[in-house]
């Protein structure tokens, strides 16, 4: 018997259920291995949407801009994923391999649409409710109607082709739905998209509007909320200006726009003396103090009569408004100081090892009062602001006392320690004297 035979004998074992031999085992293993290799490929293939093959992309993927469209670009387009082809917008025959056949007038080839024709062309589908319902019943279909009310739409109708049309914001050939992070109209990217024109001083030189909006917005607290804190509900250009019906809100409607989020401030403003005054002056309410694009985080220094205060922009020294502004600022500062003072004492107590968690909870309530008071500022009535700050002062007082109590307890402990140490020292001296005694007795009395 050869060695191979011997091995085969060994591997073939007999069990209750029968024998386990080597050759079928090899076969099973190979089949399983092959299946494991092929399965991921199958799954992967299924995950991709089927993009129809077209001769257009085959040629145009080799061209540079502006006639170049790569396979990857087109595959990312939502239209391609839903089964539309180049011919849907450009006409022609994508099944024809030759350029003459594919781009023939007979096949309905339209070529590159003119800029002022683009909105109407997109609207042919996107404004057709019955048509769009096939793809996404909840998508709006009023974009074109809105566009026609916008500054862009109106100017386009008068022949200005420099204004934005659909493809300027949504891009072309690689259009992603707005909820995708890489879409040019995703909330995170909207400001960048608008600024492509609106921050370009050379492009905008014929128009009588500024080009510093994006720079201002980038420094604003709204931008920080969106980009740094990741709050997608924070406002971007389109939130206040509209997207398809983009136009600046009128002076009278600025407050309405801001108050969709800043409800309390608007309610307080409405009952304040400023409402009538600003309407009479014809200035936009909120933006007079807070600016429109460069809206920075407000500080207590903004209200009052100091250098950074906005109140003194209108209010002259000693007029009622000036006085009120000073009072409001003082109230806020007093509460802020009070809270800081109690915070310091609690910190000190905590560092000494005292436990002050209850006072910390109360402290949070105190800070709530300050936050509320800063909203109440918009009533521009010192009495109302004082109501909030007084509540806060009471709490700050309470937590300050708690902190002092904790420090007193700490001192009590140290006094207790001192007394105990005295008794210990007494024992130590006593012991030492005792030792001296017994040792001298040993020496003098003999061991």
């Amino acid at each position, binding site marked *: 018997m050869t060695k191979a035979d011997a091995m085969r004998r060994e591997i073939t074992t007999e069990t209750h259920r029968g024998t386990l031999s080597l050759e079928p085992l090899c076969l099973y293993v190979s089949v399983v291995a092959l299946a494991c290799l092929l399965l991921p490929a199958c799954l992967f293939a299924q995950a991709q949407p089927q993009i129809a093959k077209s001769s257009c992309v085959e040629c145009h993927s080799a061209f540079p801009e502006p006639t170049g469209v790569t396979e990857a670009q087109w595959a990312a387009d939502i239209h391609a994923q839903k089964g539309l082809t180049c011919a849907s917008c450009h006409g022609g025959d994508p099944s024809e391999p030759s350029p003459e056949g594919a781009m023939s007038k007979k096949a309905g080839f339209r070529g590159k649409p003119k800029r002022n024709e683009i909105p109407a062309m997109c609207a042919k589908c996107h404004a057709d409710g019955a048509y769009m319902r096939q793809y996404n019943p909840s998508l709006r279909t009023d974009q074109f109607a809105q566009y026609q009310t916008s500054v862009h739409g109106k100017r386009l109708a008068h022949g200005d082709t420099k204004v934005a049309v659909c493809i300027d914001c949504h891009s072309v050939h690689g259009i992603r739905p707005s909820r995708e992070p890489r879409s040019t109209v995703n909330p995170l990217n909207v400001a960048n998209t608008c600024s492509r024109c609106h921050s370009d001083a050379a492009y905008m030189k014929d128009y009588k509007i500024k080009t510093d909006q994006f720079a201002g917005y980038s420094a604003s607290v709204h931008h920080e909320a969106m980009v740094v804190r990741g709050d997608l509900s924070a406002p971007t250009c389109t939130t206040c200006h509209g997207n398809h019906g983009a136009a600046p809100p009128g002076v009278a409607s600025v407050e309405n726009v801001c108050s969709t989020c800043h409800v309390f401030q608007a309610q307080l403003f409405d009952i304040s003396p400023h409402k009538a005054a600003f309407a009479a002056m014809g200035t936009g309410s909120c933006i007079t103090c807070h600016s429109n694009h460069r809206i920075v985080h407000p500080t207590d220094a903004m209200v009052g009569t100091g250098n950074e205060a906005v109140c003194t922009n209108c209010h002259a020294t000693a007029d009622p408004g000036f006085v009120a502004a000073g009072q409001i600022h003082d109230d806020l500062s007093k509460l802020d100081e009070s809270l800081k003072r109690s915070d310091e004492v609690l910190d000190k107590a905590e560092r000494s*090892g005292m*436990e002050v*968690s209850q006072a910390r909870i109360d402290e949070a309530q105190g800070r709530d009062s300050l936050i509320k008071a800063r909203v109440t500022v918009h009533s521009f009535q010192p009495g109302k602001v004082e109501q909030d700050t007084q509540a806060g002062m009471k709490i700050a007082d309470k937590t300050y006392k708690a902190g002092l109590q904790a420090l007193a307890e700490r001192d009590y402990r*140290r006094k207790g*320690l001192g007394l105990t140490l005295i008794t210990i*020292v007494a024992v*130590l001296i006593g012991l030492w004297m005792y030792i001296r005694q017994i040792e001298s007795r040993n020496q003098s009395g003999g061991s």
Partner: protein
Amino acid sequence: MASVPEATPPTSTHSNRLVRWLDERFGWEQLVAPLRHKTVPVHKLSYWYFLGGMTLFLFMIQVLTGILLLLYYRPSANEAFESVQYIMTQVQFGWLVRSIHSWSANLMIFTAFAHMFSVLFLRAYTKPRELTWLTGMVLLFLALGFGFSGYLLPWNTLAFFATKVGTEITGQVPLIGKPLLIFLRGGEEVTGATLTRFFGFHVALLPGITTLLIATHILLIQRLGMSVPPGQEAAWKALPPNKREMPFFPNFFAHELMAWYVALGVLGALAALYPWELGSKADPFVAAPAGIRPEWYFMFMFQTLKLIPAKVGPVDGELLGIMGFGLAGLVWVLLPFLGGDRYGRRQVFIRGLGVFALAYIVCMTAYGYMAVPK
């Protein structure tokens, strides 16, 4: 009817009535006689004799404060942190009991190490004191076990992650590592089950074993007497009249009592001036905060493991470190058997080893603290 002849009841002639009472019932005098005759050698290095008793004293403090803490502590993940917070804030002098317990734990481990090193350098581990050294080394490991298990009990963030890392390292030991890790953690991960288990170790298992070993250790010391450093021993052998001793009772004990009172003062001051902090409640789902590190007595091992490169040749670096420490520990335990004769040449080598070990531990601990940003 035969009657069992009754033995004459013992009588005592001691001057003190209480002692007489005890003597007639327990044979008190016979029991304490050896203690009365116990002497302690007096020489330049006698002060080192205090360390053993100091460690014992601190252990007794731990037992006392530990029992007090047991009255209020709750060993479940839901309530452990809050119960320690309760002790620190609501219970009268709870802050004192808890802080003394935490500080005394650290001091005890320090004196245990110092005691071990002083015994090493004074060559008190050689024949016939091998068993004393052996029981002592096991006691040292038990002390570290007390420290490790007790550290988790307040269930704060630092403790949670230190335990996680510590048991993770234990899991790296070949063969027995994984079962050991699961045994320690009470599962795959550090959870409430780990807390309950560590509590059981800390208040029942370890104290039981430690008490037995301390009794053995002290019994051995009483039977074998106090060792005298080799140089001094030789000098006295040459000139016997120079030999100086003091009785244990009351002389040495009075000295020792002084040391213990000083320790009490130090503990009280530490507890009042530097109370042990509470930290924040452990949350297993939060990422480990930066700067996680073990208590100082594990720092030198932790720092060593951090410094070893990931791979040393074909061997995993961490594994090499763990095996290294294991080997070192084994050698240390077996020192009396490896060192040979008390006056032999190998003793010089062991002294060198001892100096190296001490320097290594001190430097690595310091390095560990300097390297980690607080």
